[in-house]
C-alpha cells in the first residue's frame, strides 16, 4: 500500500505535466485557425479601480473609432479590426500578465494602452522584447517612450505641458514673477513643475516661491501663506482637480489674487463644481477643448454622447486618435507585421485626429498643438491652441 502510494504520487505529477503540455499545444493550434479576415488589436486600461474614469473613457473612445473604421470597410482591403479589451485595474503586475496574454495567446498585432504611466512602464519593456507596438492614449510620464522603440503615445508628455505653460505665462500673459505649488509625491506634478520653472526663468521670469504638498493633504494654508508673502503675479499648480479646487478656495480666502495656472489634471467639471467662482480666470493646458468648434471635435462629441449617454473626458478623444493612428499605420505598413506597423507609426505625419494633427519626434512623442483653456462664467472656455 505504501509503495503504491508513492507510485501514485509520481504518476500523478507526470500526468499533470502531460496535461499542462497538451494545454499549451492545444491553445496554440486553436489560435492558428481563427485568422480569417480579422486584425486583432488589444486594449489595456483600468476599467475598474481608482483610474477607471480614464480607462472607461479611453475604451469608449477607441471603440467608436474602430466601429467607424469597420463600418467604412475596414483596413487592408476588407480586414475588420477586432478590439480585445482587457482590464488591468491600474495595476502593474496585472498589466504584465495581460501583455503576455494578448501577445502570446491572442496574437494581437498592436495594442492601444495602457492608460496610466506606471503600467505603461511595465508594458513598454515587454513590447520591446516581443516587438509588438503599443500606443498609449494618455500616459504622460516623460520617460516611457524612451524605454523601448515600440512605445508611442498620442498625448503630450509632462514636461511639454510645463514648458507650454511657462511660455504662456511669460509671453502671452507677460508676467515676471511666479510661484509654484506642487505635489512632491506625484511624478506628474513634479515633471510639470520642473519644466515650468525652467522655461519661465529662461524667458526672463523669476520663480519667487516653490512650495510642495503631499498626496491627500487637505490644508494648504501654510504653503499659501508663504506664497502670499512673496506676492507673485501667477501661481502654477500642477495637480489634480480635487486638490486644485481646495487650493483655489483657500488661496482666495487668504486674499491671493494672482492668476492660477495648471495642467491637464485641472480638466474636469469637478474643478468648477468644487471651486466655484474661485476658479474664474484660471488657465490650464489640456488635450482638447469640447468648446472647440472644429468639425472633428464636434462630430466626435455628438457620436460619443449618442453611444454612451455621457460627456467624455480627455481620455476618450485621445484613445480615439490612438485607434486612428494604428489603423492608419497598419494601412501604410501594407501587411500585418508588428515590426512594419511600428515603423509606419513612427513615420506618421500630418494625421488629423480629434486632438490635433500628429507627427512624431525621434522619441515617438507627438508634435501637436496644446490647448489652453480657461474658466469663464462657470464654464470652461477655449483660449488658444499653441505649438511650442
Amino acid at each position, binding site marked *: 500500500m505504501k509503495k*503504491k502510494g*508513492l507510485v501514485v504520487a509520481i504518476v500523478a505529477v507526470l500526468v499533470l505535466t502531460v496535461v499542462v503540455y497538451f494545454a499549451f499545444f492545444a491553445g496554440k493550434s486553436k489560435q492558428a485557425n481563427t485568422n480569417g479576415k480579422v486584425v486583432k488589436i488589444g486594449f489595456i486600461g483600468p476599467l475598474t479601480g481608482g483610474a477607471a474614469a480614464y480607462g472607461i473613457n479611453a475604451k469608449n473612445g477607441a471603440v467608436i473609432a474602430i466601429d467607424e473604421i469597420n463600418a467604412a470597410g475596414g483596413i487592408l482591403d476588407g480586414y475588420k479590426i477586432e478590439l480585445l479589451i482587457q482590464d488591468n485595474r491600474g495595476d502593474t503586475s496585472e498589466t*504584465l500578465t495581460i501583455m503576455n*496574454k494578448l501577445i*502570446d495567446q491572442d496574437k494581437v498585432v498592436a495594442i492601444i494602452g495602457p492608460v496610466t504611466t506606471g503600467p505603461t512602464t511595465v508594458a513598454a519593456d*515587454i513590447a520591446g522584447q516581443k516587438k509588438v507596438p503599443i500606443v498609449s492614449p494618455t500616459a504622460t510620464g516623460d520617460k516611457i517612450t524612451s524605454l523601448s522603440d515600440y512605445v508611442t503615445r498620442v498625448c503630450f508628455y509632462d514636461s511639454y505641458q510645463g514648458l507650454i505653460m511657462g511660455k504662456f505665462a511669460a509671453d502671452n500673459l507677460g508676467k515676471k514673477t511666479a510661484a509654484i505649488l506642487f505635489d512632491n*509625491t506625484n511624478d506628474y506634478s513634479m515633471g510639470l513643475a520642473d519644466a515650468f520653472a525652467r522655461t519661465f526663468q529662461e524667458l526672463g521670469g523669476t520663480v519667487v516661491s516653490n512650495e510642495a504638498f503631499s498626496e491627500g493633504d487637505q490644508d494648504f494654508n501654510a504653503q499659501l501663506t508663504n506664497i502670499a508673502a512673496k506676492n507673485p503675479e501667477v501661481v502654477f499648480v500642477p495637480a489634480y482637480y480635487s486638490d486644485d479646487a481646495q487650493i483655489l478656495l483657500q488661496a482666495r480666502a487668504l486674499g491671493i489674487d494672482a492668476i492660477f495656472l495648471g495642467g491637464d489634471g485641472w480638466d474636469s467639471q469637478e474643478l468648477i463644481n468644487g471651486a466655484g467662482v474661485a476658479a474664474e480666470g484660471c488657465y490650464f493646458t489640456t488635450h482638447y477643448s469640447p468648446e472647440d468648434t472644429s468639425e472633428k471635435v464636434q462630430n466626435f462629441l455628438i457620436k460619443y454622447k449618442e453611444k454612451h449617454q455621457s460627456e467624455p473626458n480627455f481620455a476618450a478623444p485621445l484613445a480615439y486618435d490612438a485607434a486612428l493612428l494604428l489603423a492608419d499605420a497598419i494601412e501604410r505598413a501594407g501587411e500585418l507585421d508588428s515590426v512594419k506597423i511600428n515603423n509606419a507609426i513612427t513615420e506618421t505625419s500630418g494625421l488629423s485626429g480629434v486632438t490635433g494633427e500628429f507627427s512624431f519626434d525621434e522619441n515617438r512623442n507627438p508634435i501637436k498643438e496644446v490647448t489652453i483653456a480657461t474658466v469663464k462664467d462657470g464654464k470652461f472656455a477655449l483660449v488658444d491652441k499653441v505649438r511650442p
Partner: protein
Amino acid sequence: MAQQTKKNSTYDGYIALASALLLLILNLILVSGKMPAYYSGILGFMGINIILAVSLNLINGIAGQFSLGHAGFMAIGAYVSALISIYLQWPFIVALLCGGLAAAFIGILIGLPTLRLKGDYLAIATLGLGEIIRVVILNLDITKGARGLTGIPRTTTIFWVEAIAIITVIVTINLMRSTHGRALLSIREDEIAAEAMGINTTYYKVFAFATGAFFAGIAGGLFAHIMGYIAPKNFDFMRSIEILVIVVLGGLGSITGSIVATIVLTVLPEALRGFAQYRMVLYSAMLIMMMLFRPQGLLGTRELKVSDVFKFFSGGGERDD
C-alpha cells in the same frame, strides 16, 4: 500498532513529497524555456504569493501575532535587491539574499518594540509600519520616489520562483515541528501560560517576525526582478490585505491551506477574465461565500497530507491501515 502506522505514513509522506517536488522542479526546468510567457507569468506570481502567504502565516497563524505590515517587508526586499542589481550588478541570488536580510533586520528592529503589543494594537502598529516604509521609499532619492525604479534586470524565472517557494515551505514546515515551532504554537495558544512555562516569548515572537520578514523580502526581490519596474504603489496597504486574505482563506496556521488558497486566488481572477469588469465583483462574491460557509478557512488548522490524497484516490478514507 496505530502509533507505528502513523509514524510510517508520515515518513512515507515525506518521501513521496520529496520525490514529487523533485519531479516538479525537473519539469519546471524542462518547461520553463518553452512555456508561453502568459502561463509562466501567472506561475511566477503564484509562487511569489505562496512565499508571501506562507511567511505571513508563520507570523499570523503559527505565532498568532496579527501583522498587517507584510507589504512593507516585501517593499524593503524588492528595493534593496533591485538597487543592488542595478548599481552593483551582484549576482541575482546574492541580491535576493541581501533583500531578504535587509527585511529581516528591519523586522527585528521594529519587532522588538511593537511585539510587546497584542491583538488589535499590534495590528495597528504593523499597519503603521508598512505605511512608514512605503512613505520613506516615496521620499528617498535613491528609490526615485513616486516615479518608481526602472531598468531592473528581469532575471526572475519560474524555476527560481518555484524553487524558492518550495524551500520556503520546507523550512516553515520543519520550523513548525521544531522546538521553536512548538514554542510559537504555545505562544499562540496562551501567551501567559507559555511564559509561565519558561518560554522567552519576546525572543520567539521576534524570531517569527524576522523569519517571516526575511521570506517576504525574498519574495519582494523576486517580484522586482519579474516586473523590471517597481513603484511604492506596488507595496501599499492593499497588498498587505491581499496576502492576509490568502492566509485567512487558507486557514490561519495551515501551511498547505495557504498554498491551496494562493493557487485558487491567483487562478480565479484569470479564469474569470471573460466576465470583463464584473470579474472583481464575482471574485469578491466568491470570497464572501467562502468565508460564510467556511469561516475557519479552506483547511482550518489542518494540513493536507500526501497520504490524504492517496486515500482519496484509493477509494475514500474507509480503509483503516
